[in-house]
């Protein structure tokens, strides 16, 4: 393989690590593109590869940064002109590394480093925590041990010239450490950043919503958005499935009358798809406050996906928050909702009453009611009669509870009773579960 082709292959690998998907077919395209424009003009090559490989606006950004990092020429910090008169020469028979260091031969050092990196698999780096280990291995491969032994020997010999040589070598060795670390750092940025992120995301999706560390908050938010976006795509796909149906014989014959019974126009049966109507009642009281942030976040994202979503938030009273979700930006919306109704003691009975008052007339066989809450009503009247009414009118009632099932019905929890009046009552305290359940809701609607 030509060296430039080899470079292109490594670049494609770096791109994949940066979450730019490169299929084999696209890799072939990339090679064709590179062959077409050549490697001489860097901007042209960058643009040509970009239009071939990056397929979304986000990928374009990632491509640009990856390209710049990958083809960044490591600026050589020390140049050869450091060799002063009376420069210390490496004694004959000393290891290559030692002579290169003493001569200040940056090019040879860089080559040796690249070669060692390839041998120890620095390009395979997946986690940033592997950096130190890899640096060490790379240096060992370059002959660090021999170098150390030589310094030791020189020190032991004790002559003034030996001493000076040892000092110079130790100094250059320190610089080499820094260079190697920087090299591995660059490899890590190229190849490890995304796989690390993916692992963290997978962990976060399984993390209990009530126990998210503040530093993971941003990552979690991004995750919620991606999930709702994914749902949106899948949901849109489902909605369009029923466009064609079977032959509508009656209509076809009726239309053919004008043409003397010849069926010029064929009419197909189409099915009216019910777009889902979803009403969500979200508990934002003290007991579930930490999970409420994410429930609201999900609600917000869902609001952008589902056309007819009625959202309510409640502690002691239920309030319609559609306006906030529609008009405000996500952070503001959540803060405002929490300010409006959050952090108060819960009263499920009154909240259900408020909900029925406001939403009751709109509840019908096409509406799914989703209730997010722990079912702990501070010993107030749970108003199971209202819950029954909601269940009777709506197509289905889905209750998602952040508490594990063993806690249901204990203390002031009325969850076991509420659960009876729900079509589904489930524990939901991770994002993964949340996504699965919402997807189920959407799917039930789309299946005919």
């Amino acid at each position: 393989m030509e060296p430039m082709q080899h470079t292109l292959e490594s670049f494609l690998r770096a791109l994949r690590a940066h979450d730019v998907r490169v299929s084999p077919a696209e890799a072939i395209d990339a090679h064709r593109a590179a062959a077409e424009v050549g490697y001489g003009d860097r901007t042209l090559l960058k643009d040509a590869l970009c239009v071939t490989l990056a397929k979304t606006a986000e990928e374009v950004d990632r491509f640009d940064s990856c390209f710049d990092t990958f083809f960044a020429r490591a600026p050589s910090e020390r140049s050869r002109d450091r060799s002063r008169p009376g420069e210390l020469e490496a004694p004959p028979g000393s290891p290559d590394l030692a002579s290169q260091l003493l001569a200040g031969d940056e090019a040879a050092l860089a080559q040796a480093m690249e070669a060692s990196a390839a041998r120890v698999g620095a390009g395979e780096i997946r986690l940033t925590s592997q950096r130190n280990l890899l640096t060490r291995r790379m240096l060992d491969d370059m002959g660090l041990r021999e170098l150390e032994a030589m310094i030791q020997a020189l020190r032991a010999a004790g002559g003034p010239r030996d001493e000076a040589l040892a000092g110079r070598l130790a100094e250059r060795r320190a610089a080499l450490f820094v260079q190697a670390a920087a090299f591995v750092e660059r490899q890590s940025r190229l190849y490890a950043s995304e796989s690390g992120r993916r692992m963290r995301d997978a962990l976060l999706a399984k993390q209990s919503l009530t126990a998210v560390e503040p530093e993971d908050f941003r990552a979690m938010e991004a995750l919620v958005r991606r999930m709702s976006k994914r749902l949106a795509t899948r949901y849109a796909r489902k909605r369009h499935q029923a466009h064609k149906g079977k032959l509508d014989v009656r209509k076809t014959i009726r239309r053919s009358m004008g043409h003397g019974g010849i069926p010029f126009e064929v009419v197909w049966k189409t099915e009216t798809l019910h777009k889902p109507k979803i009403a969500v009642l979200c508990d934002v009281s003290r007991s579930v406050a930490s999970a409420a942030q994410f429930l609201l976040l999900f609600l917000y994202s869902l609001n952008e996906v589902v056309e007819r979503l009625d959202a309510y938030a409640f502690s002691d009273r239920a309030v319609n928050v559609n306006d906030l979700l529609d008009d405000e930006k996500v952070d503001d919306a959540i803060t405002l909702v929490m300010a409006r109704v959050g952090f108060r003691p819960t009263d499920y009975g009154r909240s259900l009453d408020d909900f029925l008052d406001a939403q009751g007339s709109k509840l019908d066989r096409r509406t799914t009611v989703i209730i997010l809450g722990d079912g702990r009503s501070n010993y107030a009247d749970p108003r199971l009669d209202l819950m029954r009414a909601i269940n009777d009118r709506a197509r289905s009632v889905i209750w998602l509870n952040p508490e594990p099932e063993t806690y249901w019905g204990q203390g002031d929890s009325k969850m076991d009773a509420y659960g009876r009046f729900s079509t589904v009552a489930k524990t939901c305290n991770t994002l993964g579960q949340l996504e699965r359940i919402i997807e189920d809701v959407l799917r039930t609607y789309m299946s005919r």
Partner: protein
Amino acid sequence: MTDSLPAGSHGHPALASVETIIAGLASVGYIASRRIATALFMATHLQKPVLVEGVAGVGKTELALCAAALLGLPLIRLQCYEGLDESKALYEWKYGKQLLYTQILKDHMGASLTGAPDMATAMERLHGTGDLFFSEPFLEPRPLLNALREPGGAVLLIDEIDKSDEAFEAFLLEMLSAFQVSIPEIGVIKATTPPVVFLTSNNVRDLGDALKRRCLHLHIPLPDQGLEEKIVAARVPGIEASLRTELVRFVQSLRTLDLRKLPSISETVDWARALILLHAGALDAELVRETLNVLLKFEADIVAVEPRIGELISIGA
């Protein structure tokens, strides 16, 4: 590189390099960034369709129109919408003529079959007659088929592909990767000269990976000050340089605000035209307030911007 160019549109002198494309597009009134020109260059040299994305009014459709003008090829346009299917995009049978044909055939066969001694001979004679029922003369070509049949090649614009259904997207795959279509009754129809294909998308929905993989991807961002000034200069030649700089700077600062719909290039151009009609020589708060509805399309945005007009103009000055 240049000597291996395929025949047809791709040998056009304007396609020799990215620079000639930039110059060529400029000559037909489209100011292209390097990346846009590179996309067109790669599209014609690798013979792949280009998927153009970007917010509304940033010049996606315009690019296809100008590319057609530059290459001197006919532009065939297919506007996508929900429910678009192959009978509207690719071909349809001419049902009326087919029916007439069967009538004629019936009469004709009646005459030729009367002499047959038994059923078997009659069937043999029937099969012996050429079956033209599903044949090219009865084919009513739609945009995609027209684009494939254009002898000298064409520029095919599949506009707003994201508005179409997933099924239609899948249907396009064969067309986009091999520049051919399969019609079950006839067989495969292959393009004589592959058309230059542009697909545009506003990101109403995420497009499938299969489609994206077959296309080059071009994302057109909102332009920077310099590029936008050039665009305005090209589109609205009569405008004074000072006013042009001023108004582009105002639009650029508008884009830093938090608005529902940021003004894009088409709005800037419209605004420039409006200002010319009003014989404006320079921006002032009153003038901007009166013409703000050209730039901003939502009442809420206008309300948000109005009190800050003075401030925005002074940033620009």
